[in-house]
Structures are given as structure tokens and as C-alpha cells.
């Protein structure tokens, strides 16, 4: 069987990183406190940086550019998981998504680090070393929310809603690993839910893309500041 193309392997990942970065950046200026504002904005910036590096690899193969891949596709062509498309401006839901996403992301990045394509393996190893700090951040917030009854209740409610979306980030064979890691870390059971699969598009994705591409669409020749 031939190796899947870079686009096949990396576009879903790049789209996830771009869109989760964008969603995280929606907290810039309104996170629960100033240090968190800085931290979550840094994570957002880092995710978008990962998206750019991945798009560049795919663009080389497809003969296009990272910007065209990031901004010029039709909404239905984005391959991002529904988990990152959701807009939930509630901090407990944001942390629940952060934990689900970072745990799932670690699993697929570990797998990509042993890719036969040295460029893919190299970038995956770099991303993994940076994501260590995203996982630490998620870890700190989990402990913080779990430390109070209200925090735990709100986190659990958000996890109940988002868990099927979390499963949808990964390919089927990687899902049992996600289930195991999360149950161990969260000290709670997660049901055998039907995953919300990649390929479906939540209504709020179109709004996000509209906002994200407005400058590019209004200045097709390229904006200059």
C-alpha cells in the first residue's frame, strides 16, 4: 500500500491547530485573570505557528502556499475536527476542550514522530517538545478546577458534552489510548460514546472563517501595513 500523501496526513492536523488557536485567541483580553490572558494567548499563538509550519510542508507538495491553504479554501473543505469548531465562551468548557484536545494531540503527534518521511518526523518532534508546556498548562487548570465542588461539577458537565467530540479528533485505532489516558487523569469514567467525526461542520465554523479571512478577502492583492 502506498504511503498516504503529506496533505492526507497533515491537513487535518494543520486545520485543527489553526482553528483551535483561533478559538483560544478569542479569550485574549477577557481570560479569568491577567496572567491567564497572557498564557492562553501564548498557547494560541503557538498553535497557529504549528499550523503555519504544517501548511508549509503540505504547500510544498501541492505547489501552493501556506496562506492559500489557511485562508482561501471553501468552508466545506476544512478538515478540522468538530471539537475545535465549537464556540464555547465558558471557562470550564474551554478547559475541558483544552484537556481533550491536548491529550488527543499528544497521541497523534507521538505517532507522527516515527513517520518514514523525515520532514514530517522532524516537525512532529519539534511540535511535541513545545506542546509539553501546553499539557502542563492544561494539567494546572484541571487540578485547579477539580479542587472545588463547583469547579469539578462545571468541568464534568463540559466533559460530558465534549467527550464525543474529543474522540473525533483521532483515527479510530488511536481512540482506546485516548480513553485510557483521560480516564486515568480525570479519575472518572467516560462512556463509550459515538464520536463526532471529522468531516462534519458545526454552524459556527462559517462565522469563524468569515471573520478570520475578512482582511485577506478585502485586499486580495495583499494587505500592507
Amino acid at each position: 500500500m502506498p504511503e498516504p500523501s503529506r496533505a492526507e496526513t497533515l491537513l487535518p492536523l494543520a486545520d485543527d491547530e489553526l482553528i483551535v488557536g483561533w478559538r483560544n485567541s478569542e479569550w485574549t483580553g477577557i481570560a479569568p485573570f491577567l496572567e491567564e490572558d497572557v498564557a492562553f494567548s501564548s498557547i494560541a499563538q503557538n498553535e497557529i505557528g504549528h499550523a503555519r509550519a504544517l501548511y508549509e510542508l503540505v504547500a510544498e507538495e501541492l505547489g501552493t502556499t501556506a496562506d492559500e491553504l489557511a485562508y482561501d479554501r471553501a468552508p466545506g473543505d476544512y478538515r478540522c475536527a468538530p471539537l475545535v469548531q465549537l464556540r464555547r465562551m465558558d471557562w470550564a468548557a474551554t478547559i475541558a476542550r483544552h484537556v481533550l484536545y491536548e491529550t488527543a494531540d499528544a497521541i497523534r503527534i507521538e505517532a507522527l514522530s516515527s513517520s518514514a518521511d523525515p520532514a514530517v518526523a522532524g516537525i512532529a518532534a519539534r511540535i511535541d517538545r513545545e506542546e509539553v508546556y501546553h499539557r502542563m498548562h492544561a494539567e494546572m487548570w484541571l487540578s485547579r478546577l477539580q479542587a472545588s465542588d463547583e469547579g469539578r461539577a462545571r468541568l464534568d458537565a463540559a466533559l460530558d458534552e465534549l467527550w464525543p467530540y474529543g474522540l473525533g479528533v483521532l483515527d479510530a485505532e488511536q481512540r482506546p489510548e485516548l480513553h485510557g489516558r483521560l480516564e486515568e487523569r480525570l479519575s472518572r469514567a467516560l462512556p463509550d460514546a459515538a464520536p463526532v467525526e471529522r468531516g462534519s461542520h458545526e454552524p459556527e465554523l462559517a462565522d469563524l472563517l468569515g471573520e478570520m479571512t475578512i482582511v485577506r478577502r478585502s485586499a486580495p492583492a495583499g494587505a500592507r501595513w
Partner: protein
Amino acid sequence: MTPAAVWEALGRIPDPEIPVISLVDLGVVTAVDVDHETARIELTPTFLGCPALEAMTDAIRESVAALGGEADVRVRTDLEWTTDRITPEGREKLRAAGFAPPSPRSGEAPTLLQLERGPFRCPWCGSIDTKLENVFGPTPCRSLRYCNACRQPFEQFKTI
């Protein structure tokens, strides 16, 4: 134009975010190769999300142009940059400017427990009685700590 002249010129370009150290001190210039009037320069960014990359590339082009040559800058995202690439001079310049240099990388990935419990030294007073305030500082490559001895906050470079 010789490779030594190019290295020397690049050693005078300040890092766009932390101008106390140069691009060479930071260890992001990973190769220089000169062929007549063209300098082929490999740049290996620190964090992939680093927004300073374009500013660095522009500064390198200007600097080589000032030597009468042309820079062909290649950004390598497949190569490993680790904080161990910061030169000893670079680490000392960081410390003198109030940034705690990164600890050396060990075999294992750093953990939250190490950041919370490890002996991180205050760049102002030298005490190790410091605590983690925030995993992320003003840029992804730094975290925020607070020194209980001199009661000053400071920025700690992350080990990657």
C-alpha cells in the same frame, strides 16, 4: 565576503524580542555557506510559533547586503533547536539583563513538577527561593517566576 565575515555580521544582529542577545548567541543560525556574492544561511527557529521569524530574516538580508552580498535564507523547521544551543556568552548576557537562562536539557521532557519544585535561580539576587507564577510569559519561550527573597518577578527561559 568570507563565512567568518558573515558570522561576524550576524553576531551583531539583535534578537527582535530580546535585543540583549544576538541571533548567533541564540543559536538560531545553524549554517553559513558562502559562494561568491551569495551567502546561504540556515535559520532554525526557536519556537515554531515565533512571530519574530520574518523580522530575523529581513535583518539577515540587510546585514548581508551591507557586506556587498546577497543572502539566501532557508528556514529549517525540520531541524532541532533546543535551548542548549544558546551560547555561554548568550546565557551570561541574558542573566545580566534579568532573564534566567534555561536549565540544560535532560533526557526526559520537562514536567510541571520540575517547574514547581525545581531550583530556579533568581537573576537579580541569586536566591533559589523562587516560585512558578505562570507557565507562559510574554512569549511562548518564557515562563514567569517570583523571587521570595528579593520580591521581584522575573522571566525564566523554558527548556525545550
